[in-house]
């Protein structure tokens, strides 16, 4: 208890930030909690034609139309199921509301900039451009992700300008 308090006050001093962590397959990711609007269950979205498969469609979130992206499909995870326990993280990025489907949400953590180390160059499902760094908490490795940058990117095809880039490249 005391230790936690101490840790927290220390963390505040070091201008730490809170992160939401979630799992995708075997990996654990952390995103800035200030980008998260809410967490909800998965509803069958309405299909949008001629979109990449990881864009599941749109849902009605209390009167607004919100696109749903399945990050598991984006990462080519082998096992993608939709159960009553499937979780959608509703994100507030780039002035928009976007839902991201993940395997599960695990934790809310405080991380100081010191705790986040630069990630090595690697070829993963995400371009390292979207990786802020790696953090280790209790022997778990967290991939700290710039979710806003990822969602804005052309490969997500969520925004008009991004789409144009993609079409231009194709």
């Amino acid at each position, binding site marked *: 208890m005391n230790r936690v308090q101490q840790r927290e006050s220390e963390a505040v001093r070091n201008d730490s930030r809170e992160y939401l962590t979630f799992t995708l397959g075997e990996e654990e990711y952390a995103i800035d909690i200030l980008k998260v609007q809410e967490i909800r269950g998965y509803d*069958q*979205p*309405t*299909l*949008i*034609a*001629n*979109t990449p498969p990881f864009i599941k*469609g*749109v*849902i*009605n979130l209390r*009167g*607004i*139309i*919100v*696109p749903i992206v399945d990050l598991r499909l984006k990462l080519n995870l082998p096992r993608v199921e939709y159960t009553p326990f499937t979780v959608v993280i509703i994100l507030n990025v780039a002035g*928009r*509301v*976007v839902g991201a489907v993940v395997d599960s949400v695990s934790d809310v953590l405080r991380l100081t900039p010191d705790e986040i180390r630069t990630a090595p160059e690697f070829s993963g499902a995400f371009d390292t451009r979207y990786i802020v760094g790696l953090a280790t908490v209790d022997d778990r490795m967290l991939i700290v992700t710039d979710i806003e940058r990822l969602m804005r990117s052309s490969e997500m*095809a*969520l*925004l*008009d300008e991004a*789409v144009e880039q993609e079409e231009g490249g194709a």
Partner: protein
Amino acid sequence: MAIDMSQFFQIFFEESEEHLATMESLLLELDVAQPDPEQLNAIFRAAHSIKGSAGTFGFADLAETTHVLENVLDRIRKGQLALRADMVDVFLKAGDVLRGMLAAHQGHGSSDPVAVAALCTTLQQLESGPPATVAPAADTPAAASPSEDSVATMGRYLLRFVPTAHAVTSNAIPQLLDEWREQGTVEVLRQPLATDDDLTWEVRVSTSQARSALSEVLEFVAESGRWQLLDEGAVEQAAGFGLFDAGEQITAVESVVPDAAGGIEEGDGFGFFSPLPELTPPTLLPSSPASPPAAAAGRTPTPPVPRRSKQGGSADSSIRVSVEKVDQLINLVGELVITQAMLLQSSLQFAETLPETLHTGLIQLERNTRDLQESVMSIRMLPISSVFSRFPRVVRDVSGKLGKQVELKTVGEATELDKGLIEQIADPLTHLIRNSLDHGIEMPEARLAAGKPAQGTIFLRAFHQGGNIVIEVEDDGAGLPRERILQKARERGLPVSDAMSDNEVYHLIFEPGFSTADVVSDVSGRGVGMDVVRRNIQGLGGRVDIESEPGVGTCMRVRLPLTLAILDGMSVAVGDQLYILPLACVLESLQATAQDIRTMGNQTHLVQVRGEYLPVVALHEMFNLQSAWQDFSQGIMVVLDADGVRVALFVDALVGQHQVVIKSLEANYRKVNGVAGATIMGDGRVALILDVTAIASMARKEIKKSRMGGG
């Protein structure tokens, strides 16, 4: 004690804007050679109202400038000064300056004191005589001009009020009396001295103004709730009834208000009302608004004897409400519609067991919701005249600058459309009109040489067509120069060919940076504008079409959706998905037989509908869905009219008709080809609204492809 005047500033600003707008439109209508006295009076009244309220609110600069303007106008309407065309220009200019001053008072921009001073000098020169007194009409009691032509609409009112401290210090009351005096007669029955305990004024006014106009003024100058406005419409008869004592006569009136009208008739003196400091209404006149709540609502109460002048009729039947409130209401009603649809849909599951009363209740609810929705939506609908009214000025100014003679004719000003659209359509329309003035209408000599009257005409029309509102800007000018546009397009490196259709060529003028003008003027020629026009209009969900004939004229046709928020839709099913078609585009639906279906180039399918072959667009192919049917004869063909192009859309089934609230897909996602928007269905799920125009153009492309493939 003193009420905070600043809370009324916004109303003052809005009203002054309206007065200025009225003045401007009247000035533009004015026939300089033979001005209509009614119009002159109306212009004068507008200027006067601004002066009056500017004085009341302590905007001295505004009041002074309007005062000078008013003096000139007054002499003109009295026939002491002949109206000249250059005067109208100066008056219009004055309106602009006043508008600038108003804006400065509202905190945006600053007014130019030099321009104001110059204007005042010009106006005084126009007046070309000794500056008139503060209230010129005071010399002629029972002001000749308005009373002569409006005797029939004169109303008599007894006014009792306690002025606010601010109104006293700013000397607003004498100004007010002057104002009324110019529009009728004023009789001051009681004027409190500064030392009096009871500060109640009593004034009898005979005026052509509407009761509501008086009560509005009173609301400004009087302490909140401490005023009375009694209708004495039938006072001529009442005076003889002997009911009223010859009340106290105010002897000091003449000295304090030197130009007060004479003619206080002894027997008329309504002393009946004299010592009533609490402003309790006399029991004989129970309907007078005396209690504070009634006075607060004082704009709308029905007068006991409704006597309204022609001008004031609409003022008391409307209220000002902020747009946010209306939008909030619309959003709430939108949600209500969704909830209602949801209830109805879930009730269908229990169709057998549903109690009769519940069923009737739901039906009733549906009807009421729909009516409510319609009424709420109509709040936002405004006549397009509010946009059109600014164009006479534009045409006048620009044609003057260009040395052209142009007349603007407007048709369909009463056409209503959404307030949001009205605000955003003004700029594109201004561009189109300037474009017509600059490029369309020729110089007078050229027109005469072409056998046309020297004066060009621009028609501005608005009308409803289907679910759209159409606004046309048509000129009888030279038409669009096809060759020249092509040449310019080639210079700019645009992909063009001589084989392009006229329509395609004309649409090149909407390309960014495109201009055929040789000289860049301040009217147009920079090539910005038309592309902005198209973008703005597309942003509103509309389109621009061009029709043009060399030597005859050009017609720019803007098509806009009626409202941005609600759509009458037909839902269709494809596979397990539901889509909404705008009902306005649906002509009919039918089940085709196998022999009605033909192919072209072995790719494109055509369906024969009453002897006509229409291209078939299969929605499941377009959207890569799994159709429930194997061939076209099993599902339903929905014949769509997309801007004159007819196509048959093949769907699995028709589901129903709904009014849907249009939600943006682009707010959180992006534009999807073939989809105009989204909506939320009764069960809370999202359905996409199809973009019929895009579907039709896809069909056209298909046909072109197959033609090329076949030929």
